């Protein structure tokens, strides 16, 4: 338990710092910039209480907001995906796997499953985030294009990071 607490605190801090210090500087073709930090919410154990997930989503979003001067934008999106995580997991995995396996990883599930799982969360997160950031329906096509292309890069980064950290 204490071990887990330390481990996930570290994931939280590294994810936020990597996002705000390094990845926020990336801008490809004037529209693509990845949001990698939600990996923290993806990696939490299957049995994390729903209230805790929601609260951690809020904390994660707020931390990123403080660095990027976008108060509330990341927070509101992350609260939602934290809250929705159990619902989505119910639909894409069975109760038996969730009880026999501790946390969603490539090694415990499968590569295809993990990519699909990441893609669902990144899609929800990026679409809402880019719309909320723009805060207007003007130029909605450009906003959606940004969300889609950035999303692809985010998925790639998250999946690759799994091979780098949890190689067993």
């Amino acid at each position, binding site marked *: 338990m204490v071990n887990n607490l330390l481990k996930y605190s570290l994931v939280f801090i590294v994810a936020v*710092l990597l996002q*705000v*210090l390094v990845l*926020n*500087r*990336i*801008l490809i073709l*004037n529209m693509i*910039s990845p949001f990698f930090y939600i990996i923290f919410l993806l990696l939490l154990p299957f049995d994390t*209480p*729903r*209230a805790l997930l*929601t*609260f951690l*989503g*809020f904390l994660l*979003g*707020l931390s990123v*907001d*403080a*660095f*990027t*001067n*976008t*108060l*509330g*934008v990341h*927070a*509101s999106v992350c*609260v*939602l995906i934290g*809250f929705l995580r159990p619902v989505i997991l119910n639909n894409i995995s069975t109760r038996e796997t969730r009880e026999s396996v501790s946390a969603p990883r490539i090694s415990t599930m499968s590569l295809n499953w993990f990519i699909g799982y990441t893609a669902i969360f990144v899609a929800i997160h990026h679409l809402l985030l880019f719309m*909320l*950031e*723009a*805060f207007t329906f003007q*130029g909605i096509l*450009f906003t959606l294009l940004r969300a889609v292309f950035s999303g692809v890069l985010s998925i790639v980064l998250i999946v690759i990071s799994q091979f780098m950290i949890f190689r067993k």
Partner: protein
Amino acid sequence: MRNLFRIILRYHYVFLFLFLEIFSLSLVVSYNNFQKATFLNSSNGITGYFFENFAGIFQVFDLKKANTELAEENAQLRTALQHYQMRTLNGSKQSYLAERNPLITMTQDSLNKIVYFFTTARVINNSVNQRHNFLTLNKGRLQGVKPDMGVVSAGRVVGLVTNVGDNYSTVISVLNEKWKLSAKIKRNDFFGSLSWNGKDYRKVQLNEIPYHVPVQNGDTVVTTGFSSSFPEGLEIGIVSEYSLGTGSNFYKIDVDLAVDFRSIVQVGLVENRQLKEINKLESLNYDGK
């Protein structure tokens, strides 16, 4: 009553979710007015600390360019200073300088009282990838930074100080959809409002220039001095494209920014010493309405 408690207890996560979601959305809406001072922005001590200690790693790559820019600015200032000294010796203070470098002459008014005061700061965080971009500087209230100071890089407009912490401050960048700046075409003094459409970090848009005004590609766009945070005549960029919208009386003008926002390392802060007086005067205009 017991049933109510049971429901709350059972669905506590739903209530928590609703509470946090409404709270964060209300932050978004109220923060849309960017000038509202809040604690949770990059001018506070914690975020500032991280930016200050990690900024160096990335800025190493930009140093060469920054050096060249500083050297160029130095050379310009030296030339201007020499001309100034010569003119003073010859007994005429006529402003040859005004044409060459507005930074120097604009610091003095006719009574030789300093109006604009300049200091420098280092950029410790900067972004160009959002719709609302900000910079973070390594100086704050204790070093004399105040809200509404103008921020320039080598004499060209970068942004405006918004939030000021003890040791750090946040600057709203020209590349922020929420900020508008009054600007004019240097050649003919027609002014309009400058804003960013969120698409290309190298281009901003100059609006409200009426169609009868002669505009050319390559025209220089400068500050007007109406905003009172910037002296008049600071360079913003160069007209790169213009067209007349259908059924519109105004041009759509794209301006290539003079500052490369991806490699700003050192900036100058401009303080208007008469800002308080100007604001006080202007507020009188609205009082008697």
